[in-house]
């Protein structure tokens, strides 16, 4: 029997063009990575609104938001939950960045980023940092039960800023 670790995917690798998509973050509004072209973009795929680890992770990112903004970076959370679920979750936890619903067809975007857990029917806990041109600069797959924190994202943003400056 395959172990949990072996069942994990390898997410789309650095140097790959990030697949574009358009998903709802509210019932009447959609968001696409290309909306933020020219700025670093952080994509945080996560398994489920309300789960303890996801809650801690998204709350942490909200708290770290001023740091992300220093890099002019935009953060998008993505799970297979629907928009109404996202809205209730965001309101309850004071989350103010967009949470996108990879809801229909379910998990399509997560699959495109190789960040979908087929056995569970939810997104992996995967992080991507995209550069200003929409190329994947850094990606990370966290064990599903572990909150990856924000240090990896900040390192990637640091390294990217240095590259742009040099």
């Amino acid at each position: 029997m395959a172990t949990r670790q072996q069942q994990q995917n390898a997410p789309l690798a650095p140097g790959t063009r990030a697949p574009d998509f358009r998903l709802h973050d509210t019932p009447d509004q959609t968001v696409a990575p290309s909306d933020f072209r020219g700025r670093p973009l952080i994509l945080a795929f996560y398994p489920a609104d309300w789960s303890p680890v996801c809650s801690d992770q998204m709350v942490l990112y909200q708290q770290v938001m001023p740091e992300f903004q220093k890099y002019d970076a935009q953060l998008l959370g993505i799970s297979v939950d629907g928009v109404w679920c996202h809205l209730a979750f965001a309101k309850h936890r004071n989350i103010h960045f967009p949470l996108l619903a990879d809801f229909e067809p379910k998990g399509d975007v997560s699959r495109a980023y190789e960040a979908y857990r087929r056995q569970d029917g939810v997104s992996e806990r995967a992080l991507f940092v995209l550069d200003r041109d929409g190329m994947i600069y850094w990606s990370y797959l966290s064990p599903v039960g572990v909150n990856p924190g924000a240090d990896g994202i900040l390192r990637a943003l640091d390294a990217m800023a240095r590259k742009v400056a040099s």
Partner: protein
Amino acid sequence: MNLTTWEARLTLPIIPGRDHIRGPLDAPVTLLEYGDYECPYCGLAHPITRVVQQEMGDMLRFVFRHFPVTTVHPYAELAAEAAEAAGAQRKFWAMHDLLYENQQQLDPPHLLANAEALGLDIKRFGSDLGRHVHEAKIREDFLSGVRSGVNGTPSFFINDVRHDAPWDFATLLTAVKQAAM
């Protein structure tokens, strides 16, 4: 497979004078907590850290840094500022203990009552809180935690390396003892 792996290590070294340290400065083991006074798990961890310190005696120095998650804990920031304001009057640890032992009472009137109970200069304490004198240091603590891989509270580091195992008394004490060997 992880495309990038790293060991979570403390990025901001412990600096006497800047950091709050309980125990001998030259103790062979350092246990550092990133904590939030309004976080119930930190409240559970507090007596555990106290007993670990008692057990280890002079072998351990305990360091506390702030990691207030105000997104979900509206009183966490002001409580952290109260601890720092007490610290400015050499009563950091007394306030720290009071805050963790009374987590349901972190609103401004209770913070002032704590300050009075500790015999602090109330005018100075109130002024520190009102002008958010210690806000920058608390933010520096928080960011040092974020950069060091803190992903929630409480997060512990033993000799600069993040302690990823559980923090129940037996596990934490064993980990600290192993670091002393």
